[in-house]
C-alpha cells in the first residue's frame, strides 16, 4: 500500500522543495511550479518508482494528491 509518506520524497525531488508535506487535498494550486510540464516529470517519477503505467485520460481526471494516491494503489493491486 502506497502512502503519502512514500509519495512525499518524489514530490520533494520533482518540485525541488524539501519542505513539501503532502496531504490528500493538495492540488497543483498548492505546490509551487506544479504545471503541465513538471506534472509530466511527476508522472514519470511515480511510474519509475512504483513500476506502474498511467494512461493519459486517467491523469486528466485526477483532482488532488488523494486521488493520485488511490489510483496508484488500484494499479498496484492489479
Amino acid at each position, binding site marked *: 500500500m502506497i502512502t503519502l509518506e512514500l509519495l512525499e520524497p518524489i514530490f520533494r525531488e520533482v518540485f*525541488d522543495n*524539501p519542505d513539501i508535506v503532502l496531504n490528500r487535498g493538495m492540488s497543483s494550486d498548492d505546490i509551487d511550479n506544479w504545471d503541465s510540464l513538471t506534472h509530466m516529470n511527476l508522472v514519470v*517519477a511515480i511510474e519509475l518508482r512504483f513500476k506502474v503505467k498511467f494512461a493519459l485520460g486517467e491523469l486528466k481526471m485526477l483532482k488532488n494528491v488523494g486521488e493520485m494516491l488511490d489510483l496508484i494503489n488500484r494499479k498496484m493491486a492489479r
Partner: protein
Amino acid sequence: MVPDIVEHDQYNIGYICTHRQCRRGLGNTSALRWISHRFERQDYTFADLDGLTNRFANVLTELGLRKGDVVFTFLPKMPEQFVAFLGGLKAQCITGTLFSNLGDDALLDRLADSGARLVVTSKSLYRKIERIRARLPQLRTVILIDVADDLSHDLLSWGRMMTAAHDDFATPVTPPETPSVLHYTSGSTGKPKGVLHCHKSVMQQARTAHEVLGLQRNDLYWCTADQGWVTGTSYGIIGPWSLGVTQLHFGGTYDAGCWLDLIARQGVTVWYTAPTALRMLMREEPTLFLAADLSSIRSIFSVGEPLNPEVISWARKTLGKDIFDTWFQTETGAIMIANCSRFPVRPGSMGKPVQGVEPAILADDGTICAAGEHGNLCIKQGWDSMFATYLNNSAAYEDRFKNSYYYTGDMAWRDDDGYYWFLGRSDDVINTSGHLVSPFEVESTLLELPEVVESAAIAAPDDLLFEKVVAFVHLKADVTLTPELMLKIRLHVANRLSSVAIPQEIIPVEEIPKNKSGKIMRRVMKSRYLGQDEGDITMLEEYGQ
C-alpha cells in the same frame, strides 16, 4: 479615441495605472477582480490599488531604494505582485517580474546581471534565492509576502511593512525616457539579456489596448498570461489599467471547465490568451462547449506563437467567435502587428501593422523586399514602447539596429493586401508555448550532469506547444540513456532553468556535429531529426579535418 492618459508631463506608469484613474473619477471602479484558485473573489478598486501601491512605494523609499535601483517580484500570479510592480514604478525603481518557475541558474543570471537590490517573493520560493544569495552581493533585501514578522534584518515581512507604511505617496514627475520595466529574454547564444523599457511605453500599450483589443470602460478583461512575461505586464497590468478597465485575474492553473465557468459567471467581455491554451481547449470534449455560456465575450485575442488556421476554424465552429492573433516581442513592448475586427481575418496571418508602426520585410543586404518575397521582419525605430537597451550589453542592442530598422529575428513576408505572414526564426531560439528558450542555456545546463559529455538542443515542430525542445546528448562511454537518466535530465533542466525548458525528447548520439571553430551545428541536428537534407556540411569539424 484613446483617453488622454498623461497629464502635467507625468509619464509614470504606476501613477497612470492608479492615481490618474482616481483623478478621472474611477476611484470606486473595480480595477482588479481577483479570483483565487479556491474561487474566492476579492475586488480592488482603483482607489485601493492607488493606496496599496503608494504604501509599497513608501516601503521602498524607507528601505533606501532610489530611482534606477532594480526591484523584482518572484511570485505566482497574485495581488501582491501587481501592487509591488506598480509601487516599484511609482518609486521610479526599475521593476521586473521573474517567472515563478525559474530555476536556480536562471534566477542567478537575472538577479546578478541586473544588480537587483530587492526581491518580493514567498517563503517557499525564497529557498531558490537562498541557495544563490551568497553570489548576489547587491541583493540587500528580500520581502516575503507570507510571514507575519521579519525573519532577519534583510528578510522582511510584507504584511508588517505594508501595514506600517503610509498610503499616501507623491509620485515624482517622471519624464518619458525614465527607465521602467525590465524583462529578460533568451537568445540563441550567451546568457539571457535584460530588455529595458521606459515609462513612455505606456503610450503604446494604452493605444494598442484601445485600438487593437478594443477595450472600453465597461469591459471585464481577462489576460491569462503570467506576469513573469512581457504580455503579463504590458497587457495583464499596464495597458488595461492605463485605460481604467477592470481586469479579471485568476490564481488557478489551466482547467478548461474552470476557465469556461469563469468567463460565464464573471461575464468576461475581452479575452487575451495563448495559442497553446487554445489548442488545449481544442482537445477537450465538444460537449464541454455546448454547455458553456460564452455570450458575454465580444473578442478573443491570442499572442505568443503563430496561431494555426485550424484553431481559428475550430473557434468559429465551436465558440462562434473569431480569434484575433497579435504579434509583438519583449523588445517591442507592445503589439506591433495584429488582427482585429476592423478587417477580415486571414487564418494563419499575423495581421496588419498597428497605427504608427512601420514594419518592413528586408533582405539580408538591407533592401526592402517586394510583396510576396521572404525576408527579415524589421520595424522602423521610434515607436513609443521601443526598448531602451539591453542592460549591460549595449553592443547586443546596437546589433539589432541597422539603417534605422530594428531586426526582430523573425522571418516573414507581406502579401499584396498588407497582411504579414510569419515564417520562422532567423536564429536557433526555441519558441515553446509562447516562451523563448535559449538552446545555449539548455546545452549548458545539460553539461552540468556528469553523465553528459556534449549536448545540443533544437526546436522541433509540436502540435500543442508550437515548438518543443529536443535535446541530443553524447553520453560518457559507460553510460546508457535509461528511463531513470532521462528523468534525471528532465528534473535537472526544470530545477536549474525552468519547466518551459524541459526537453520533450532526449536522444542519445555518438557525437555532436560542430564546425571548425567548435560551434554546434544545430541546423544539421535539426535536419537529421526532421529527416531533411543536411545542406552544406563541408564546414563540419569531422568532415573538414
